[in-house]
């Protein structure tokens, strides 16, 4: 049964009791009224009958008219009162009847007396009036007795009513106390307990009413709270990071197991300590310094060093937050000792590396200086070679040439043959020196080129003309013209001619039969020149090495001038210094085609010098 029903039933029973009580009260009041009226009548009868008796005696003595009149009036009043009076009780009605009879008889006796004046009649009147007085006093007595009974009864009723009301009130009070107030007090105690953190409290299985429901809901809530708290605690405990709660003074009010293992102090020890005790003496920043800021809702994060119980130092990343609505801080500690150690090692390593690099750089700078010096030495050597080697060659060659030409006298055929051998080898030596000079200049990046615009066709034709005789001697068909365009290119004219001569010379030298074709085609931004032969070709493995120094293939070629092995390397250097490209395509036993490019003249009159 729920509380609402209980209250309803209590109210109904209250109403019923009140109704009964009111009804009884009304009854008592009417009964009292009635009795009072009866009492009044009885008193009036008594008074009148006494007065009548008194008046008759007076009249018997004085016989005055006045007294007789008074007696008559009194008699009429008494007769009226008796006739009007009403009584409930049978005894009272009998008394009234006898009083009425006496009264009637007094009337008759009075008539007789007034006529006879007989004493006997007079005595009879007095006797009758005394009977009325007696009846009236008896009536009053009976009435008074009833009044007393009534009074007693009403007193009893009042007491009974009070008792009933008290009982009902007490019952209700009990109900209220036991069913409502007590459980509420219990529950509020429970709420207080739970509020203060005792999550083990349960209201228990209470009555099946609203408060019982409230208690059950509250228990369920506490259950959830406990589970949640347990979960949080489990999570916090299982977290590797340490945490604690500190108050304004920096005292620990809660610490985690992990913090205790981080610091080496037990949880109990920590709870008697302050945060400052862990921060060590040399610590620059104290978390407590930022207490106010954090409370204002400004969380901070530091990387701090803490002193363990054993005196060793740990690096802990410390993040501080406020605990809502409390003058406390929640501090989380993350162990970054390893990271810090690594950082320090890395830093040391970096410094070491920097020192090494510096050392190395210095060594390299010195080496570079040495290289520059060596380069200068080489360059000096090259110019020494160019001058000192060529200077004696000139008179040697000229002296032999003079003899060969017969200027110094007659020369026999045999002498001329040997002089020819000498002259040819002097020329070869001279070429070798020139080539060496060129290649060393190319390598030193000091090939001096005179850039000017010139017509590529002119160079092709001039080269063809130079080699026409040689080609003809070998029975080779030297063709050019159809695919040679007339275009202004930008480069060193003499050096370009040298490249053409070199390629054309090689082509003729290494081709036994067939033809040599010269081409110069205009492409976007440059002219592509080519020298194609029908020689035996170059094997793929040799193609790669072709443009390197001192690489000579087909050394078996007997006739013509011996090469220096530098021609293609020099050609490559010249072409690349002019901003072009040189390459070769070859098929064994079919022939080779050498290509190179020269940039087109773009109209600018500047003399660009390639390095």
């Amino acid at each position, binding site marked *: 049964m729920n509380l609402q029903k209980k209250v309803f039933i209590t109210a109904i029973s209250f109403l019923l009791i009140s109704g009964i009580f009111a009804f009884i009260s009304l009854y008592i009041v009417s009964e009292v009224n009635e009795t009072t009226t009866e009492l009044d009548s009885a008193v009036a009868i008594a008074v009148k009958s006494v007065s009548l008796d008194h008046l008759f005696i007076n009249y018997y003595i004085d016989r005055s008219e006045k007294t007789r009149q008074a007696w008559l009036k009194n008699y009429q009043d008494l007769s009226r009162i008796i006739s009007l009076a009403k009584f409930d009780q049978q005894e009272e009605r009998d008394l009234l009847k006898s009083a009425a009879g006496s009264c009637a008889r007094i009337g008759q006796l009075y008539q007789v007396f007034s006529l006879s004046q007989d004493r006997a009649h007079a005595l009879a009147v007095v006797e009758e009036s005394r009977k009325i007085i007696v009846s009236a006093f008896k009536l009053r007595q009976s009435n008074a007795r009833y009044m007393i009974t009534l009074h007693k009864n009403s007193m009893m009723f009042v007491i009974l009513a009070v008792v009933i009301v008290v009982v009902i009130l007490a019952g209700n009070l009990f109900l209220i106390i036991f069913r409502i107030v007590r459980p509420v007090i219990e529950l509020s105690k429970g709420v207080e307990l739970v509020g203060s953190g005792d999550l083990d409290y349960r209201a228990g299985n209470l009555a099946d009413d609203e408060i019982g429901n409230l208690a059950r809901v509250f228990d369920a809530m506490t259950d959830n709270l406990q589970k949640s708290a347990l979960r949080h605690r489990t999570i916090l405990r299982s977290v590797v990071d340490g945490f604690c709660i500190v108050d304004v003074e920096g005292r620990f009010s809660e610490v985690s197991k992990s913090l205790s293992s981080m610091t080496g102090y037990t949880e109990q020890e920590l709870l008697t300590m302050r945060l400052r005790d862990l921060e060590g003496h040399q610590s620059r920043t104290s978390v407590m310094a930022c207490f106010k800021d954090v409370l204002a809702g400004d969380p901070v994060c530091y990387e701090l060093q803490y002193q363990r119980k054993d005196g060793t130092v740990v690096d802990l990343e410390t993040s501080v937050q406020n605990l809502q609505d409390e003058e406390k801080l929640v501090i989380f500690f993350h162990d970054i000792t390893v990271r810090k150690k690594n950082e320090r090692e890395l830093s040391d390593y970096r410094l070491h590396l920097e020192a090494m690099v510096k050392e190395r750089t210095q060594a390299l700078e010195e080496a570079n200086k040495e290289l520059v010096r060596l380069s200068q030495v080489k360059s000096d050597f090259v110019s020494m070679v160019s001058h000192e080697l060529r200077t004696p060659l000139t008179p040697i060659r000229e002296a032999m*040439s003079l003899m060969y030409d017969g200027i110094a006298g007659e020369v026999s055929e045999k002498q001329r043959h040997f002089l020819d051998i000498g002259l040819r080898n002097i020329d070869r030596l001279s070429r070798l020196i020139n080539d060496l000079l060129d290649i060393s200049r190319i390598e030193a990046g000091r090939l001096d080129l005179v850039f000017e615009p010139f017509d590529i066709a002119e160079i092709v034709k001039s080269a063809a003309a130079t080699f026409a005789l040689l080609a003809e001697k070998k029975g080779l068909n030297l063709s050019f013209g159809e695919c040679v365009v007339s275009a202004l290119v930008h480069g060193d004219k003499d050096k370009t001619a040298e490249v053409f001569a070199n390629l054309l010379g090689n082509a003729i030298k290494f081709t036994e039969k067939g033809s040599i074709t010269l081409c110069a085609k205009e492409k976007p931004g440059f002219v592509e020149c080519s020298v194609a032969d029908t020689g035996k070709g170059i094997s793929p493995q040799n193609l790669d090495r072709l443009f390197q120094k001192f690489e000579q293939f087909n050394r078996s070629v007997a006739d013509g001038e011996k090469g220096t092995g530098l021609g293609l390397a020099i050609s490559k250097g010249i072409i690349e210094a002019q901003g072009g490209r040189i390459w070769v395509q070859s098929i064994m036993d079919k022939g080779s085609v050498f290509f190179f490019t020269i940039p087109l003249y773009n109209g600018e009159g500047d003399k660009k*010098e390639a390095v």
Partner: protein
Amino acid sequence: MKILVIDDEHDILDTVSARLTAGGYAVVTADTGEGGFAKAVAEKPDLILLDVMLPDIDGGMVASKLRANAVTRKIPVVFLTCIVSGKEMEGREKIGGNFFIAKPFKGDELLAKVQEILEE
């Protein structure tokens, strides 16, 4: 026709002289720059073959002096040089040397060049 050859190498002087003489020219020689300049002023040759690298003053300087002197100003000068780089030759041209023959030269080529210049 008279040709002055200035070179510090006596072997070159001998062979060039022999070649030029065979070619029908009168030859005067000098083995220093200053000496060569003095010979040029004194002999007034039709052409001067001038070595670039000389022990006292270099060929360029001699050429400058020749160009500055009224007597020798118009005599064509042919540089005999080991320096074959175009850039360096350009520099010489500015000083006033008219022609170049690169060492080592061939006697007949030298003779042909000399004939060509004198014919102009």
